[in-house]
């Protein structure tokens, strides 16, 4: 069960190479691309805008609506286009990962729409989607109490590792995948899922590792967002 060396040469607590960019979708109110290794997510934000159908409107607070989708060509074997049970669930947990940092009370009767498209998938897609979406929300000028970064941690063989790639996720002797999202200042965990098998101590170690990963991602998110203003 021992996993001694990562195939791509990374340290066990090392993130894959990250690229981030904002303003990648010109028509959107805010947008961002976030790439971790070979996983690429694009997020665009529209709104706050009027919510239709009207009966969905909330006179007290705005609605955050997230939609996660994987492009049919993003995986090795073509994925049938359109929503699935998996994507519906990920859209939900994405919403929950982001909701706490947005002051929705400011926007009664409206919706803030977040659309996430995975254009290339190599594990950690929901986390890349959340990191991209958080940047797109900031880029759209939505007032945010905090920033959100996400990364998957897990156990590959007998090792706790940060930011699993597809090969690690499919590790023959078993891998546990734990997607985590964390707010930057308050360090609140707003996404936590787990598939696999871990002890409590392993889980807590993994969450600690995820926190460090999220801190690094957060720095990149802030730096990338600041750059757009630098260039006028």
């Amino acid at each position, binding site marked *: 069960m021992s996993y001694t060396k990562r195939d791509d040469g990374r340290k066990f607590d090392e993130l894959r190479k990250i690229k981030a960019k904002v303003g990648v979708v010109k028509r959107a109110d805010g947008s961002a691309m976030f790439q971790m290794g070979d996983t690429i997510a694009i997020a665009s934000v529209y709104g706050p805008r009027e919510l239709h159908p009207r009966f969905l409107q909330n006179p007290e607070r705005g609605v955050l609506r997230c939609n996660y989708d994987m492009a049919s060509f993003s995986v090795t074997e073509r994925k049938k286009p359109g929503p699935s049970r998996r994507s519906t*669930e990920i859209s939900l947990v994405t919403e929950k990962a982001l909701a*706490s940092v947005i002051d929705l009370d400011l926007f009664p009767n409206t919706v803030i729409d977040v659309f996430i498209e995975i254009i290339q998938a190599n594990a950690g897609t929901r986390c890349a989607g959340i990191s991209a979406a958080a940047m797109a929300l900031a880029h759209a000028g939505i007032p945010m109490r905090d920033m959100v970064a996400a990364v998957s941690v897990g156990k590959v063989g007998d090792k706790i590792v940060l930011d699993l790639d597809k090969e690690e996720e499919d590790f023959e002797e078993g891998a546990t995948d734990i997607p985590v999202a*964390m707010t930057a200042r308050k360090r609140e965990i707003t996404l*936590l*899922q787990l*598939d696999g098998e871990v*002890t*409590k101590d392993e*889980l807590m170690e993994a969450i600690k590792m995820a926190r460090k990963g999220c801190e690094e991602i957060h720095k990149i998110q802030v730096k990338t967002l600041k750059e757009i203003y630098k260039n006028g």
Partner: protein
Amino acid sequence: MDNDYIISLVEQGKRIDGRKFDEIREIVLEPNISKNAEGSARCKIGDTEVLVGVKMDIGEPYPDSPDEGSIVVTTELSPIASPEFELGPPGVQAIEIARIVDRGIRESKAIDFKKLVITSGEKCWILFIDIYPINDSGNLIDASALGTLVALKNTRYVKEENNKAVFGEFTNKKLELEKTPITITFVKIGNNILLDPNSKEEEVAEARLSAAVYNGRIYALQKGGDKGFSEKEIESMIDVAVKKEKDLKKIVDKAK
């Protein structure tokens, strides 16, 4: 009931139904509630009631796992169970419940999928686990997961002839349940963590965590709700879940 009242009660260390924060409502498990199902069960947690049925059919293994059968979990949130539910295709809440139950079973390897194979790469048994809440008084997740375990425990194979299932003709062969993963759900109200929320508590809860535990190990987690948890809160919830697993396992083992 006023939401603020529930919140202020919790601040005083109390719950509207008089329970302690870490107290689960009375659980009643009843196996074999429907004759034509291969396996079935009723699970009550307090007033919450869920029916689970298992049907089997013969299908083809997935190309990437030719030596494994599979399970398909579906939840029907019928308007019978709550004024909040409406007719129509499964919404996001139904899908989430089904997927949490699915992952608890799948990840803990409660069912050995290899034992469901009839012919490698060609024919296998598929287990359809269908969850029907009858009354939603809160915590459908745990009730669905518990009901599923009991339904699987009394699942027997139907007869197989020429790679086809002969429905209605049962064999003596029982499905082997290798493990009993227990799913335990917490909610956070203010700064307090409550076990087994009722529907009023669910309404005011800011965050939710469900953990599937077997033998002290964690096999699935799902965080819900708009707010987050601190690392400390997660650690203490896992501690409680591991403790409660032992109590609940006894109840499941007794249900025959």
